[in-house]
């Protein structure tokens, strides 16, 4: 079944690359993150890897990413745990440098309840500006309405920002990138504030088709 899905995925990729005016980009990332939860002094840092697929078609762009990291809390009496985060974004270009963005994501934690698993949707903006035919910089900001938590609770305020820079070949075949993502979720559970905050740095290479 897995092989069948892989073959179908590859065929879909080839089909997409044959459509005029579109571009497909596969990316491989290494990540480093700092995760903060509940209160000061409960930081956790970690590193891992991930990848993604980006498809541009006319004014639309689909950006899907997944990464996984092993996170170690500062506190020596807490055990390390694993993060796996999936993000999907759909952009619609209003101008050549400015786009509306919607999407969603989910963060899984293993072992369960080592930290909060979170699911969220996002509505935001994205702006990418070419510095040169070889490079561009981009920022994005999004509001995350009504996130859901594995441990229950609600969040009235949740948002994210990111900053990125990419340098590559003029034909877009290869691009090295570095990206920072910041996410803040003001979670409340049982009448208490249990906020979540994550800073993530991602760097890697993308191959365009």
């Amino acid at each position, binding site marked *: 079944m897995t092989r069948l899905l892989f073959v179908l995925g590859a065929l879909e990729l080839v089909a997409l690359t044959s459509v005029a005016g579109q571009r497909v980009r596969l990316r491989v990332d290494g990540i*480093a*993150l*700092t995760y*903060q*939860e*509940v*209160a*000061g*002094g*409960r*930081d956790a*840092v970690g590193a891992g890897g991930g990848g993604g697929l980006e498809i541009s078609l006319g004014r639309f762009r689909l950006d899907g990413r997944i990464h996984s990291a092993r996170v170690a809390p500062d506190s020596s009496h807490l055990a390390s745990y694993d993060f796996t985060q999936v993000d999907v974004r759909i952009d619609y270009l209003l101008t050549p440098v400015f786009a509306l963005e919607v999407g969603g994501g989910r963060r899984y934690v293993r072992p369960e309840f080592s930290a909060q698993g979170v699911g969220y949707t996002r509505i935001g903006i994205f*702006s990418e*500006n*070419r*510095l*040169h*035919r*070889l*490079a561009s*910089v*981009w*920022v994005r*900001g999004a509001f995350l309405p009504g996130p859901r938590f594995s441990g229950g609770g609600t969040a009235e305020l949740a*948002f994210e*920002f*990111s*900053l*990125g*820079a990419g*340098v590559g070949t003029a034909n877009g075949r290869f691009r090295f990138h*570095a*990206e*920072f993502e*910041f996410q*803040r979720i*003001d979670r409340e559970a049982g009448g208490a*504030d249990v*906020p979540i*905050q994550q*800073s*993530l*740095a991602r*760097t890697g290479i993308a191959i365009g088709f």
Partner: protein
Amino acid sequence: MQPMKVAFAFSVLSVGALLSAPLSAQRHPDVLRAQRAYDAFDLRQVIPAARSALIDPSLTMEDRRIALELLGFTYGALDSANLAQDSFRRLLIINPDFEPDAVRVSPRIYSLYSAALGQVLVVRNIQLDTTSFVGGEGAWNVGFEVTRPARVVLRAVGGGIDLIVDSLQTGTGAAVFTWDLSGGGDSLLPPNRYQIILQASEGNDQFSVSRVVEVSHSIVDTLLQYTEHPARDTLPSTDQPGRSWKPLGLATLYTALASGATLALENSALGSPARREIGGVALVAIVTGFVLSLRQPDPVLNPGNIAFNQMLREDLARLNADITVRNIQIRNQVRVTVTPLRPGQE
């Protein structure tokens, strides 16, 4: 008598020069005798010898021409105007293109020749040029002179065709027929050898002269398509701007936006935030902007030049479309060539 001798001396020199070539050929004995007498200034012997030759029915046309020429010049030198004119008239009938050298021949003899020329009806000095043109798009000129006002008819005979091409009423002097070489109707004259006949008539006087021409057909070369506009060059579609700090400015702006928002909106309840991630990426963004500011910027599209080049491409396509249509027409056309043949080639 002195002027008469001078005139005669001139005439002898002139006729001697004119007749020197024919003397080397096989000549009629009487013509040879007349020529030698003329060369020896023995004019009284020239006349009987030449007249004797002219009554011989076996006399060749060339010998007849020489005999009449000798008679004309001799009678002229002896002041026999009527006889001189009669000789020149007869000479012009068989050799319409005859014309003594006005510089070397005495004026009196030349005036006798001119008077004779006005008394006969001949077509002379025919001008036939080698011509080549696409059928239906050109014409062939037949130039000639007539010595008296007359109606002249142009005919073409050959290859089973006897075609009256044109006719005109002309005065004394030069005239020209212009013929598109149509062989009747819309068709071109088929490839062949043709006798081109000019017939002049005025009252009871008639004269005709003919030349032989060869008419051939060939294909017409098609036109080459243009690969670039024949009149204008394309303009560069981009301009190269000068170096600027815009990349660094943009990178700094984006970095400041994201970093400022992050730092301002961090949750202070979570203690001192870790900033190694934002610091690293911000550094990468600004260094990228700085390095690219030192490089030559991207060429900038020039909309005016692009529109101009597009107009040139459309014009080029239009020109080539016209050439394609023209080539279709050309493939149905024929190039016709007319070559006059010299007497030996006929």
